[in-house]
């Protein structure tokens, strides 16, 4: 095990997969420079054919990635901020997600889209959104949301090797974190959740950057004798339903924490699954801690007010365990 940074984990995953498979290439806005550091230096190793700066044309280069995937390549397309996905929504939802199905299984679609997402501090509503909940409703897309450096590396490598379109959502705040990563060819299979902390009184299901917040709360509440389990689904599609329901069955109480919105969000989706398939194991109503249903505001106190935080998670846990 080594301790590495979250961004370093992305860079390692990309470099390892590019070494391993010559059909892997990267394109996106400013990937040569690596605006957030994730692709920095790869141009020196792999050259301009495999590390391609694109014009600011999300629909154009997302579509080009899809076409390249169908014609034998394994592209990794960087969408600089998740909110920019709206500029290529048709290519993601109507093309990448559907062409395999619509062609009766003929199309190959081994493409990975990487996007930085989430509220990073006064980036305002068009650079702070979560976006993946909207894509849960788009069939044919796999959705991965790592919460630490180790999972980031292992999930990205698995995503690149996957033969389906995978969107990897990297929370901007996690960029500053460090974590331990196993040595060697570290892969985290898609569809395998992780119990990040074991507990017996209540399960916090947390996604992405909400996982470290949940772990902080779990540690604090342990002082008060509340034993909190933290379950991280890691990929939302495919979803580790068995792992999720097992944790719920173990504790009987659930708080779901996601930075997306309350209505139609990932937390709503997971709550519905728990109700459908694990209702009998619940000892209390499910609580959701999410962003408020507003665009994410710019001014710091407003932003803080609408986002989920440790205090809100703590209150929700106390409520379901009361």
């Amino acid at each position, binding site marked *: 095990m080594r301790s590495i940074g979250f961004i370093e984990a992305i860079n390692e995953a990309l470099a390892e997969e590019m070494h391993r498979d010559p059909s892997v290439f990267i394109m996106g806005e400013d990937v040569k420079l690596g605006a957030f550091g994730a692709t920095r230096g790869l141009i020196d190793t792999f050259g301009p*054919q495999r590390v391609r700066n694109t014009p600011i044309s999300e629909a154009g280069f997302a579509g080009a990635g899809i076409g390249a995937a169908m014609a034998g390549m394994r592209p990794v397309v960087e969408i600089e901020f998740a909110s920019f996905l709206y500029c290529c929504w*048709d290519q993601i939802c109507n*093309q990448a997600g559907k062409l395999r199905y619509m*062609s009766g*299984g*003929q199309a190959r679609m081994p493409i990975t889209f990487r996007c930085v997402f989430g509220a990073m501090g006064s980036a305002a509503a068009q650079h702070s959104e979560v976006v993946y909940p909207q894509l849960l409703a788009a069939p044919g897309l796999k959705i991965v949301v790592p919460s630490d450096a180790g999972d980031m590396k292992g999930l990205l490598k698995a995503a690149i090797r996957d*033969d389906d379109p995978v969107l990897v959502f990297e929370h901007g705040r996690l960029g500053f974190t460090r974590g331990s990563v196993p040595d060697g060819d570290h892969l985290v299979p898609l569809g395998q959740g992780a119990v990040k902390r074991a507990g017996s009184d209540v399960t916090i299901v947390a996604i992405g950057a909400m996982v470290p917040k949940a772990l902080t709360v779990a540690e604090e509440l342990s002082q008060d004798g509340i034993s909190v389990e933290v379950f991280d689904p890691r990929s939302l599609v495919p979803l580790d339903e068995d792992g999720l329901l097992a944790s719920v069955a173990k504790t009987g109480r659930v708080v779901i924490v996601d930075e997306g919105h309350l209505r139609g969000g990932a937390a709503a989706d997971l709550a519905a699954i728990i109700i459908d398939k694990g209702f009998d194991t619940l000892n209390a109503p499910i609580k959701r801690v999410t962003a408020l249903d507003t665009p994410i505001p710019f001014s710091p106190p407003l932003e803080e007010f609408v986002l989920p935080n440790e205090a809100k998670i703590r209150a929700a846990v106390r409520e379901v365990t009361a």
Partner: protein
Amino acid sequence: MEASAVPKEKLLHMYRTMVKIRRFEETVRDLFFQGQIPGFVHVSIGEEAVPTGVCAALTNADYITTTHRGHGHMLAKGGELKPMMAEIFGRATGYCKGKGGSMHIVSYALGILGANGIVGAGIPIATGAALASSFRNNTAVAVSFFGDGASNEGTFHESLNLASLWRLPVIYVCQNNAYAEFTPTSESTSVKDIAVRGAAYAMPGVIVDGNDVLAVHEVMLTAVQRAKRGEGPTLIEAKTYRWEGHVVGEQAFVGEYRDAAEIEAAKQRCPIALFGRQLVATGFVETAELSRIEGEVQKDVEAAVAFAQSSPLPDIAEATRDVFAG
């Protein structure tokens, strides 16, 4: 391009392809009115020279993307009548196992990377196939077929810029049939000739008579050579005319929006009749030979209909298959 510059066998193949598209489309239209086909269909009667002239310059290794009006492109690229008709009928024996239907018949084995229900969506996809080819020394070219309407989509402009910038082996074939849905091009498009938009992206923009199959073929051959030499993309505007409506059966909800005289004038320039006369004029094809081809195609199309009608509907289990590869 003179017919004498093309081998006779190829000329006859092109003639057969055009007749095949015509009979296929007429048959689909008639079957739709008989209530035998679910959903809705868009036919390309009168536009047969464009797919035929273009695809005659391609091999199975080359890629195309096509549109909601894609039957002709599929047939010209080598699509077989039976699985095509079966797909339109929603049968298990269709190219897409009945999951795509008329607007989405594709065969990846033939290099067809999608017939798209979203206008303009295939343009970046073909650009990406050309990008993949650029990793392999431009050994294959990609062609995107689209209409005049799609040239007003952002994907058209983004793709042309990208392909020109990266000198990709892609050919953009704008099949200008004078109408985007129910709106004439003059009411939707800022330029008279879409080909001039090539200049904005530093690529050749070529106008060709889309009813003259050999003229289309000739400009395609030039574009393919340019692409394979690594010199980049070409925009071809093939001017033709949509004899039928945007969608079969549209009269029921939009009525008439074109002058009968305009449609009649277009029919006077039937691409199949023009090519037939050209072939006979060369002296090495006789009218009887063309009639023989027409008879054979007619039988083939009838056999495809019988195949589709007698094919099983998909097993219900198919509904949840093919969402993911694994």
